[in-house]
């Protein structure tokens, strides 16, 4: 006689991954369960003992250990353990003790293995390899997003419309009208690729407004050497390229031959009302107040990207481009107000903006590089005012002033190029705790405005010097271990490695920042010129300095933690609260908790490896 115990069935129906199984299956499971009670403090599983059942916690809580005795996890009602042992030789891999008086449901091995084979969702949830589960979680999101998988050539709907560079402006206008296109690629008989591009806007601004003769050659009004994109690149990459360069048309190239043109409007079909509009409107505002009025639009476009399942890379880049545009427009406005600069300068973005890993909650890290002819007496008043204007303007637009005073308003960070070169050389040659902290911020630098080549020069210097200084790398590696991830979650707490419990976790300080820190050390070691952590990881993987598979794991971990952080901010926005980085465990789904724990684990392993790779 097979009877089902209602209490057991009800419990299974309320707890994932069982709750996702069909009722008939659950009834069968419930009828086969065994029950056992463990007093607080007693051992439930010993290392190496045979195991014949998946253990599901009905009430109470347990601690799971590593073989070394190190705490691995704490689990409470609905948590399960023993799957490692069941799937590998039927011996206990992780010993378990009852933390509180605990009632355990034993799901017999045969039933467990059947569920594992027959039900994908169940298998995913109990999958033994932490990293596999994380990979799947990240991959599922990637598949869901067309922007990430669609290639540029799928957007091309017609042959490119071209015109020889000797043709007249008039002929160009006629051709564009006949063909119904808003841009023309200008060719030269000697070259297979276009030598220039003209758009409707050029006809308006460079011909009509300028009163140019329509018989003039198009060569005269075209934008020479247009930026192009390869046919196999992703729509997402096209979007980034357009955002960064403020372009509306991109010629697409295949094997050195022109394939067609994609327009902004083609991409907008993929990402309706996107951040491109925000960027466009930033450059049309004429005062700090007007810029400030765009903050709700910035937030709305952030929300839209989250809703449309964009990944952290896309969101991080879009937010960085928006931040960059604010800076550029503020500098234009500052120059308009203060007059032209007395000597050339370059405005630098530092940290997460330079890495293109921005979210909504971000403070401004920036600096000014001045021409070597800088004379404080004569020039500094101007640049001090310029910095004040930009930093206060950014603060008004939601980029909080940097608490560590890493801003161009600080005279230390408003120096001529040679001083910067000296700073960087000293930091690399003679690292101190303070300069190491500086290195971790300043060595992610991007030129935003002015003499951008100076930013390149500084990046080259870092690239050249850092990899030759093992001591510097070792110090940076130690520094990257200062912020560690927690162990995981327990009930509604964040659990630390020493067993302490906190109410929330700062996803930046305990997650994305330490990942970026450790990726930076490897990137400096392999001489990667990339700034984005994902791009740096590509270079690091290419260089083969990580054990196989670990680079990919780290990528997944960064993506997952970043998205939890981003979604948390989006949720706050939707609920009309100020977004922040602190996530409380009760806000996380069971799925997110599991994946986050896996990601923390990967980070923790990667930190251990970092110490080993760069010994002092």
């Amino acid at each position, binding site marked *: *006689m097979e009877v089902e*115990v*209602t*209490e057991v069935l009800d419990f299974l129906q309320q707890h994932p991954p069982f709750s996702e199984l069909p009722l008939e299956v659950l009834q069968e499971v419930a009828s086969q369960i065994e*029950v*056992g*009670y463990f007093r607080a403090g007693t051992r439930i599983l010993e290392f190496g003992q045979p195991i014949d059942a998946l253990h599901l916690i009905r009430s109470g809580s347990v601690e799971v250990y590593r073989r070394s005795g190190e705490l691995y996890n704490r689990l409470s009602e609905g948590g399960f353990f023993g799957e490692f042992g069941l799937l590998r030789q039927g011996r206990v891999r992780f010993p378990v003790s009852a933390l509180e*008086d605990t*009632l355990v449901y034993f799901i017999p091995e045969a039933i467990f293995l059947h569920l594992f084979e027959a039900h994908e969702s169940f298998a995913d949830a109990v999958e033994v390899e932490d990293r596999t589960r994380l990979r799947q979680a990240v991959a599922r999101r990637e598949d869901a997003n067309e922007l990430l998988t669609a290639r540029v050539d799928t957007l091309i709907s017609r042959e490119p419309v071209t015109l020889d560079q000797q043709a007249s402006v008039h002929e160009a206008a006629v051709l564009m009208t006949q063909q119904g296109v808003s841009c023309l690629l200008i060719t030269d008989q000697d070259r297979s690729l276009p030598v220039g591009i003209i758009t409707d806007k050029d006809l308006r601004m460079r011909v009509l407004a300028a009163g140019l003769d329509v018989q003039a050659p198009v060569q005269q009004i075209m934008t020479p050497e247009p930026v192009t994109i390869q046919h196999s690149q992703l729509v997402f990459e096209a979007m980034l390229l357009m955002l960064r360069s403020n372009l509306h048309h991109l010629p697409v190239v295949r094997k050195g031959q022109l394939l067609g043109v994609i327009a902004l409007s083609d991409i907008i079909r993929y990402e309706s009302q996107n951040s491109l509009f925000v960027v466009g409107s930033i450059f049309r505002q004429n005062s700090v107040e007007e810029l400030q009025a765009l903050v709700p639009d910035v937030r709305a476009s952030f929300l839209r990207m989250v809703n449309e399942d964009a990944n952290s890379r896309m969101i991080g880049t879009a937010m960085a481009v928006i931040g960059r545009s604010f800076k550029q427009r503020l500098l234009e406005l500052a120059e308009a107000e203060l007059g032209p600069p007395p000597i050339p300068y370059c405005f630098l973005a530092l940290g997460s903006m330079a890495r293109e890993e921005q979210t909504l909650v971000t403070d401004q890290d920036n600096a000014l590089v001045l021409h070597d002819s800088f004379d404080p007496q004569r020039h500094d008043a101007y640049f001090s005012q310029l910095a004040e204007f930009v930093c206060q303007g950014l603060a008004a637009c939601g980029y909080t002033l940097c608490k560590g005073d890493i801003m161009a308003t600080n005279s230390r960070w408003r120096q001529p190029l040679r001083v910067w070169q000296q700073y960087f050389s000293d930091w690399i040659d003679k690292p101190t705790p303070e300069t190491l902290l500086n290195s971790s911020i300043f060595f992610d630098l991007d030129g935003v405005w002015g003499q951008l080549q100076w930013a390149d020069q500084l990046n080259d210097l870092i690239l050249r010097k850092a990899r030759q200084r093992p001591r510097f790398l070792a110090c940076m590696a130690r520094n990257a271990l200062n912020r560690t991830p927690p162990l995981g979650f327990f009930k509604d707490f964040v659990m630390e490695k020493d067993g302490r419990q906190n109410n929330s976790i700062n996803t930046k300080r305990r997650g994305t920042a330490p990942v970026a820190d450790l990726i930076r050390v490897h990137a400096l070691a392999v001489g990667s010129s990339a700034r984005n952590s994902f791009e740096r990881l590509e270079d690091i993987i290419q260089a083969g300095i990580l054990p196989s598979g670990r680079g990919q794991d780290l990528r997944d971990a960064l993506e997952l933690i970043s998205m939890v952080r981003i979604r948390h901010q989006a949720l706050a926005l939707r609920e009309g609260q100020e977004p922040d980085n602190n996530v409380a465990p009760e806000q996380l789904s069971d799925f997110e908790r599991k994946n986050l724990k896996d990601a923390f684990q990967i980070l923790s392993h990667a930190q251990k490896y970092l110490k080993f790779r760069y010994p002092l």
Partner: protein
Amino acid sequence: MFYLDPKKLRDQPVDEEPELSQSSASAVNWPERFRQLAETAVDPRLKAYYAAGVPSGDTPLAEVPLLAMDVETTGLNARKDGIVSIGLIPMTLQRISCARAGHWVVRPRTSLKEESIVIHGITHSQVQQAPDLDQLLEALLQAMQGSVAVVHYRGIERPFLDAALRTRIGEGLEFPVIDTMELEARVHRQKPPGWLDRLLGRQPVSIRLADSRSRYGLPRYRPHHALTDALACAELLQAQIAHRYSPETLLERVWS
């Protein structure tokens, strides 16, 4: 388990429990008693049950096959009221086995009172379609065979089954039980409340099933389903042994 109406009785006082047919609990030599009954029993089903014997009192609890039991009844009086459902769940100190659990609804030979329907939820129509206990007797005795019963409050299962069998086959049923309520009473009812307790109106600690369970961190179950109550009782015994006894404790210390 039949739960007493709180209006009639605030808590189940142990010292007022109905006297059991066996005089002093520990005085019964159960293996010997079973040998005698196997000789004298007339019904072959009953004879087979006794003949299978019971573990002796000096067996460590860890080695004793146990059977958690609960019956729902039409009332509290074993002579006048009848059984409407039986829940059984085999167990050991280590594990309780849902796979071999049993649950039957049976048709009592007495009428079903409205007030009891409210409690256990078994209705007239369910009972009308149910078999008489006589038809299930063989299966029931087979399930009980060789095990020691585990109940919460020994004043129900044993007297009711005894009475039901007398009515049906003219012979009663005797079997040893471990009473989880009595095990709780040993801790919480060692001495009667003192004058100060009475003066301060201190209530004695409740030894009802749900309250006892909560003291051991066991979850709250919906009561009054024979199988759920049997499971609840089984878990309580495991908890009591884990906290207050040990797997080496001899059976004679806890059965009666």
